[in-house]
């Protein structure tokens, strides 16, 4: 099969964009990505978004964004899979190109949290849980993470600051990313002093909600402009796997089955082994999810994921660098844009354009976008082509 390449990338700064609307955010990322691709003309648009219906009273983002971006007429739809919406949209773009039905696909992830504030946002985010059995009973996504984290700490006998390495690493990397919401490194003491938001999840175990948009242009290698200026990055493999929506339906709270399946399938598709992965953009909406993702993907044994953060293995110079541009914790949890941000960040790494956060001679990057507690897991493996 022909190579499917990421021809253009674009992202907005993640953060609180009180004065910028949903459509404007999407447009900014699209404009950058289209320019970056050398002016490729998209034939299809896949919008990853999680909350516009509740937070902006806006459905039908496909037509809205296509119209606002001056692309009226092209095929355009929204892809929704909670926090994995961006990854799922990327997968739809990939499938469209791979099928041969589309030559140039535009994937944009966009989230606008700040059209509402406080409890309204919490209520909107909670719609990603099993509404009848979880949200209606008062469960929030943070409470889900707290239940899992408590169990993890109990089973594996973790110290109180066992997870601090995740936040410390993320913030160290965020300091080098001009698009990150938080660009300041933190010391472990900051983590230790942080307020509890849903015990044992403290303020630094939870990624902050952030407005933002990221976009990629996908095409087949042979359709690239002749003078294409960037090192080539292709999507070597991808997979999307689901798990039970409700936590109480899980066989085992401490295994992200969907992550295991999606990682395995993506590696198989890319025809590589896990050892060949040079960096991992995990979905650290909560630090417990980062730990469980490291385990389910195979980077750590069961119950050992947290140790990779504690011993420095996930830092930029470590065995398996993670959240290399700050991850969700420092770049910000950009809702349904998150998976596309990961693709942009991985492409920057593989192009050698990651600035102070550059990982030397990286060839394969694994990106992983989760919906809820891995009720959806979307994996992609990006490869720098020779």
């Amino acid at each position, binding site marked *: 099969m022909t190579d499917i390449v990421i021809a253009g990338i674009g992202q907005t700064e993640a953060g609180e964009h*009180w004065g910028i609307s949903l459509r404007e955010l999407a447009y900014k990322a699209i404009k950058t990505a289209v320019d970056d691709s050398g002016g490729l003309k998209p034939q299809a648009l896949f919008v990853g978004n999680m909350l516009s219906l509740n937070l902006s009273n806006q459905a039908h983002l496909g037509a809205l964004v296509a119209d606002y971006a001056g692309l009226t007429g092209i095929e355009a739809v929204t892809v929704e899979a909670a926090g994995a919406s961006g990854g799922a949209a990327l997968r739809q773009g990939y499938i469209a190109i791979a099928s041969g039905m589309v030559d140039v696909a535009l994937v944009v992830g966009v989230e606008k949290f700040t059209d509402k*504030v406080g409890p309204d946002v919490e209520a909107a985010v909670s719609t990603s849980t099993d509404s009848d059995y979880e949200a209606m009973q008062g469960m929030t996504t943070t409470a889900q993470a707290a239940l899992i984290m408590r169990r993890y700490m109990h089973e594996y006998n973790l110290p109180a600051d066992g997870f601090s390495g995740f936040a410390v690493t993320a913030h160290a990397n965020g300091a080098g990313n001009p698009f990150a919401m938080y660009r300041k490194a933190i010391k472990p003491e900051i983590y230790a002093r942080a307020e509890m938001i849903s015990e044992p999840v403290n303020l630094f175990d939870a990624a902050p909600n952030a407005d933002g948009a990221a976009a990629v242009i996908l095409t087949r290698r042979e359709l690239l402009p002749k003078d294409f200026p960037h090192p080539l990055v292709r999507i070597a493999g991808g997979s999307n796997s689901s798990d039970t929506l409700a936590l109480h339906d899980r066989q085992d709270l401490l295994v992200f089955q969907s992550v295991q399946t999606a990682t395995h399938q993506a590696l198989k598709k890319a025809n590589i082994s896990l050892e060949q992965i040079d960096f991992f953009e995990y979905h650290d909406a909560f630090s417990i999810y980062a730990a469980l993702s490291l385990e389910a993907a195979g980077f750590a044994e069961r119950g050992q994921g947290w140790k990779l953060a504690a011993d420095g293995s996930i830092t930029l110079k470590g065995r398996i660098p993670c959240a290399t541009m700050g991850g969700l914790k420092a770049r910000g949890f950009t809702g349904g844009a998150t998976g596309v941000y990961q693709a942009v960040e991985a492409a920057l790494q593989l192009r050698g354009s990651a600035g102070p956060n550059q990982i030397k001679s990286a060839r394969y990057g694994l990106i992983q976008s989760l919906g809820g507690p891995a009720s959806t897991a979307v994996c992609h493996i990006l490869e720098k082509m020779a």
Partner: protein
Amino acid sequence: MTTPKPQTSSTLLRPNKPVGIIGYGAYVPRYRLPAKEVARVWTGGKGGLPIKEKAVPGLDEDVITMSIEAARNAMARAQIDPVELRAVWVGSESHPYAVKPTSTLVAEAIGAVPNTQAADWEFACKAGTEALVAAMGLVGSGMAHYAMAVGMDTAQGKPGDALEYTAGAGGAAYIVGPAEESLATINASYSYVTDTPDFWRREYQRYPEHGMRFTGEPAYFKHITEAATALMQAAGTGPGDYQWAVFHQPNTKFPQRVAGQLGFSMDQIAPGLLVPVIGNTYAGAAMIGLTGVLDVAKSGDRILMVSFGSGAGSDAFDITVTDKLAERHGRATSTQEYIARRTEIDYAAYVRFRGKLQMK
């Protein structure tokens, strides 16, 4: 959002006849609720505190009685005949009556009736400074010799809300008159307003609501920096030309940060930064801050005052102290004396004083 046209010197509000402050007076009720008391009740003592303590009105105090206290202090400093006041205007977001003016009671109490304008002003925390701009116009046009503008509040904070720590009580009254009689001339003012819904209270609602962090960058910081920058640009001044600056003060951090953004030092804002010890006095906040500055200012000192009202807007004033201030200092109670007159209460007494217990 429309892009505003560039500001020019013609956008400054400057009356035909030069005007200034003839008298000023502050008022702060005696009761203090420490912020740690609010934290004790609502957060188990956890979390940062936005101020040290706030002033709480007594059972027999409201915006009317407090405005009268401040107005009398202003009259004492001005030493004018009250019948010469051609306006008594009170800005507040806690007028005791929804219909029936605060200002007529205040005018009556100080003897300014009946040949006077009287009305209540509402623009969240900048109602008082808006009245001050109007007083400049009334006097500067020659229609009136003297006009009084009051900013006073007994601010409402929803129990348990972030604003309950800071919603304080207090304010100040100013008498505007001809520049040649004034203790400080008001050289010019400039106002910057937009439709920004950062904080509001609808009719029949007991407590206001706010847009959380939205109240910061796009509201407070934007309006204050825009108003201050435009005023200084048009006046041809910079932070170094002012001995003192006063900014609206909803908590300790905001005025410190906005001062830094505009290039003012912590020393320049120190005498006017009262929020840590009296709380956010809303329509009174910038105006009582200015009384704190006037209490220590010397002839020739230049002062920048910038208010902020949610909804939203800022009034910026360029003020220069004259040699008449020194003799008027001691004619009324100083702001620091009011702050020192302090009786600490606990949360339970606060609940009683503020009528937060529903008896039926």
